[in-house]
């Protein structure tokens, strides 16, 4: 290690123009940059060519069933919460060809899958989304079978995280222990600070790759006051988060309430549209599509995201297992907050709030958990009388 360079975890200060320099270096290293951009009134992650592509000076206002962009007074690079679709669309694309095959006479030959050369640098990943990537790692990389496509992209991806200076109104990362501060899973994390005329980025590397990157742009050792400003900002974000979810005893709560009549009430509102599963950064379910061309000699297998809210999802000859909307909403919520723990040792929810924002009828996962808890209290009170 050369003298004066940042240790992993050690914080340095960059001037605002340092961000563009970081991006240029990543591009030179062959990374395809993706990050937040504005598209049709929404915040979506897409290709970036320079820091000027970031929605600088824009913020968001998210509510249950509603998303709105708003102009900020400050020229912040990262003045907004999570985008509509998560980063999973890059590590685990919603459609992917797995292989092709050719028929010759009675025999067929399966051709090796397409190589996956894409080397992404994710710019501006929030803490909740970092945790979500770690959750999907458990699904796709811990076996017994692993997904080679996910692995190829995941191993190469560079992750530039940002600590949240803007409380999400539908988010509850603090409840889930996943934010607003990024604590792991990044190569480099930035905290953007604007105090009066002073605008700077506090940067901390999380890996050797991140350390080397930071080393190549002008930086200064962070002063105690600058670190303190970041701490204060994150404390403020934590206090101002719009949602919370009481996770005590959560798995047992859901298991105890598997037959709670309250599921009928949420099922009566749920449209079974599946928006919540598509925007969720941890949902991993997919289906397989086998196709042929018109001549019947070329076949392909595709993998496509699937939605547990459809009747087909649990279809068996003779009918579906989860035929009612009640059973399908129950499946989704119970999976996120209970069975996921048995399956992967972690919760399937990181509290990003996307499912709340993007539900067309404003169903709120935190409110549903609260309703279950309250119904237990009501039942207990009634039993006492």
């Amino acid at each position: 290690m050369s003298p004066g360079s940042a240790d992993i975890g050690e914080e340095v200060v960059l001037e605002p123009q340092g961000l563009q320099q970081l991006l240029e270096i990543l591009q030179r290293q062959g990374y395809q940059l993706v990050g937040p951009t504005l598209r049709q009134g929404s915040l979506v992650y897409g290709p970036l060519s320079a820091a000027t592509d970031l929605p600088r000076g824009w913020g968001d206002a998210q509510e249950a069933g509603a998303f709105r962009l708003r102009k900020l007074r400050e020229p912040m690079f990262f003045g907004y919460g999570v985008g509509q679709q998560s980063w999973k669309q890059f590590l685990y694309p919603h459609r992917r060809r797995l292989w092709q095959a050719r028929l010759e006479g009675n025999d067929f030959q399966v051709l090796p899958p397409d190589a996956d050369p894409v080397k992404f640098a994710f710019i501006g990943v929030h803490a909740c989304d970092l945790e979500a990537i770690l959750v999907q790692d458990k699904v796709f990389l811990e076996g017994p079978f692993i997904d080679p496509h996910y692995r190829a992209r995941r191993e190469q991806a560079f992750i530039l995280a940002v600590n949240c200076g803007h409380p999400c109104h539908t988010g509850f990362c603090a409840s889930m222990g996943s934010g607003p501060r990024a604590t792991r899973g990044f190569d480099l994390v930035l905290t953007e600070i604007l105090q009066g005329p002073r605008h700077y980025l506090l940067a901390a590397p999380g890996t050797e790759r991140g350390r080397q990157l930071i080393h190549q742009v002008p930086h200064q050792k962070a002063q105690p006051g600058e670190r303190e400003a970041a701490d204060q900002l994150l404390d403020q974000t934590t206090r101002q988060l719009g949602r919370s979810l009481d996770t005590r005893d959560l798995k047992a709560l859901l298991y105890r309430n598997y037959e709670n009549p309250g599921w009928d009430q949420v099922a009566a509102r749920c449209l079974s549209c599946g928006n919540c599963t598509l925007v969720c950064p941890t949902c991993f379910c997919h289906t397989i599509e086998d196709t042929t061309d018109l001549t019947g000699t070329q076949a392909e297998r595709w993998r496509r995201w699937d939605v547990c809210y459809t009747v087909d999802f649990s279809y068996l000859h003779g009918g579906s297992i989860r035929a009612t909307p009640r059973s399908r909403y129950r499946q989704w919520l119970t999976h996120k907050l209970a069975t996921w723990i048995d399956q992967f040792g972690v919760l399937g929810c990181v509290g990003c709030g996307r499912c709340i924002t993007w539900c067309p009828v404003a169903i709120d996962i935190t409110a549903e958990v609260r309703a279950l808890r309250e119904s237990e209290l009501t039942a207990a009170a009634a039993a006492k009388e």
Partner: protein
Amino acid sequence: MPDSLAEPMLPVPYRVLKVGRETADTFTLALAAAAGDQGFSFAPGQFNMLYVFGVGEVPISISGDPDRPETLVHTVRAVGAVSRAICGLQKGDTLGVRGPYGVPWPVEAAPGYDVLVIAGGLGLAPLRPAVYHLLARRPQYGNLELIYGARTPEDMVYRQELERWRGRFDFRVHVTVDSARGDWRGNVGVVPNFIARARFDPEQTMVLICGPGVMMRFTVQELLHRGLKRENIYLSMERNMKCGLGLCGHCQLGPFFVCKDGPVFRYDLLQDWFLAREV
């Protein structure tokens, strides 16, 4: 087994050696690896994903003899697009195979026990490898009994084999149908009713069950009534399956992925989910 770098979704071409008709809509296929290699070993109760070129892929239990893995045997009932296409294959045709997947029947743990095998309909297919395994090591077990139920005599699979097994003095076989026309001289009645006829020591008996949901529900009830231990009852479960790898999420049954945590489950671990509806 799995190579962590390889695409786990690649089917291996197998050649159809023989197609035998079991019932009007059910066929047993014998297959061998098209490239002429050895095939793979499997344990009783495991399944493969079978792919028909361009049509699709479905989970099908291995129904052959685990001691003779060079020939891969599957018994398939034509119920929809893919299973119908499999049943339409002829000698010499090719189909794709990947597997074997899943947790097998606990036959390795059964020596010293009485073993009761209970099958309904095509549920005998995943149990047949277990029967082969048990019969090949017959002296290691206590009483060995099979209760097999089908809807009608015409729906019974492996009829000749059942006859042969019935001829053995060391294997008691009860065959029954739900209903039959006048020329049927065998038993009529549902499977759970025959448990009373089976001889076993409830303290030392392993039960292996596969069949329609309702049949399994009532069978388990009856077994518990007879004093069987929950942890000695094993069931094979069915769910929609797209990958067989624990990745697609389709086969979930509460906290379990049927493809990798099952399809064979120990009843005491499964019971809460087994008894609930629409899980």
